[in-house]
């Protein structure tokens, strides 16, 4: 009950945190999808020397620990690092970059698997009806969308739930880089478990809304019919 009262008092700050969370993880997911889906399609559709290695690397990077991703971005964006000039450390941009490192391999790997498991003949049908290479790839992606959407949701879930990377490169600065997960950590560290759980529930509700919107497009689930 305390937690709920507190949430109401802190409404405006929580809204700020929620919006930043959605912005950071949403941007990271969109950027990663723009990289990962075409890359995954390419891997899924083609056979080439080194494909096995590339896939293994992608799947390996799915297990990239957020802290490590954060650390790498930190060292690059640090004033003493190669891109220190940009002064991006402890900004939302840095958080987006770090999350992209985590999400891109997930979307790439799952898109590749989704496309590889669909009938290989989709591409041929598209080509034979006059599609350019790009258009045919687009058709394949669209026909594999259930798997790809699942990949996007997994990637978003990963970004939205992780804390190691955003904590390190964002710094959990109040009113500026504090997101839901870093706020949860802060509350837990102070022993306010109820608050931690309450914020966690908010996070899950948001994720529920996002997944409801996204799943509308996953046709293979036949959600229309019962």
């Amino acid at each position, binding site marked *: 009950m305390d937690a709920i009262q507190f949430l109401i008092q802190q409404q405006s700050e929580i809204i700020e945190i929620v919006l930043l969370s959605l912005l950071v993880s949403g941007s990271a997911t969109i950027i990663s999808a723009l990289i990962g889906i075409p890359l995954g399609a390419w891997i899924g559709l083609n056979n080439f020397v080194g494909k096995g290695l590339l896939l293994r690397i992608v799947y390996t990077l799915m297990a990239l620990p957020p802290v490590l991703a954060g650390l790498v971005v930190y060292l690059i964006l640090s004033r003493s690092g190669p891109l220190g000039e940009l002064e991006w450390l402890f900004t939302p941009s840095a958080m987006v970059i770090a999350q992209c490192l985590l999400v891109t391999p997930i979307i790439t790997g799952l898109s590749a698997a989704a496309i590889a498991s669909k009938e290989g003949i989709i591409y041929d049908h598209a080509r034979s009806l006059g*599609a350019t290479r790009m258009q045919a790839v687009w058709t394949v992606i669209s*026909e594999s969308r259930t798997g790809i959407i699942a990949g996007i949701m997994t990637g978003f879930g990963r970004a939205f739930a992780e804390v190691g990377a955003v904590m390190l490169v964002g710094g959990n600065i109040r009113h500026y880089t504090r997101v839901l997960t870093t706020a949860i950590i802060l509350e837990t560290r102070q022993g306010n478990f109820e608050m931690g759980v309450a914020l966690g529930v908010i996070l899950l509700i948001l994720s529920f809304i996002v997944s409801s919107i996204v799943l509308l497009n996953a046709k293979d689930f036949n959600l229309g019919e019962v």
Partner: protein
Amino acid sequence: MNLFEITHLTKVYRDRTVLSIDKLYLERERIYAVLGPNGAGKSTLLRILNLLVEPDSGDIKFVDGQLLKQGHKSYDMARRMCMVFQRPLMFSTSVYNNVAYGLRLRKLPHREIERRVSEAIDFVGMQDFINYPATKLSGGEMQRVALARALVLRPEVLLLDEPTANLDPHSVQVIEEIVRKHHQQFGTSVIMVTHNLFQAKRMADEVILLVGGEVVEKSNAEDFFNNPSNERSKAFLDGTMVY
């Protein structure tokens, strides 16, 4: 100018040479029937002509240019043909969208698309199914939609892989009529694979018999059915051929 000039074409799958055509010239504006036992390489030939499969060797001239030369492919030329697959795949959307697919790729005006798609769907007798999810259709219905999807593009060349295998007798007649009409009206060249000898007899100007990846006979349809010049052709027609 010939339609296709195929030379030294070979295709190997898993150490088996499934296609090996030294020289095959096809003329324009004709209907060819490709006959041959299962696994003869008929579908593979069509796929290669449509640049969907890369042969291991061989060049192909197409009308006024080089479709395939030393591995270099001209997709622009391939776009002048259209293939109907033996096991056609429906895109998981409505019948209308399936048939509109190729026209949309070509960015035709909305009106034009609507007109041509409706016409093609009427042609193949699927007007009642225009908004039906295409993946739920019956086998024969899918084959009709696949045909409409190709015809609507009015390609120079139609590559048909057993296009009426799952159709009922009446529909076979109707579809044959449509193909013949397209052929006459637009001068479309047609290469159709079929196991239906009657169909070949009804439709084809020329017959190509493929056995074991090789062209055993290529001749005028009348000659082929009446006086097969070749022992294997004779055996194939008699249904006594053992492969």
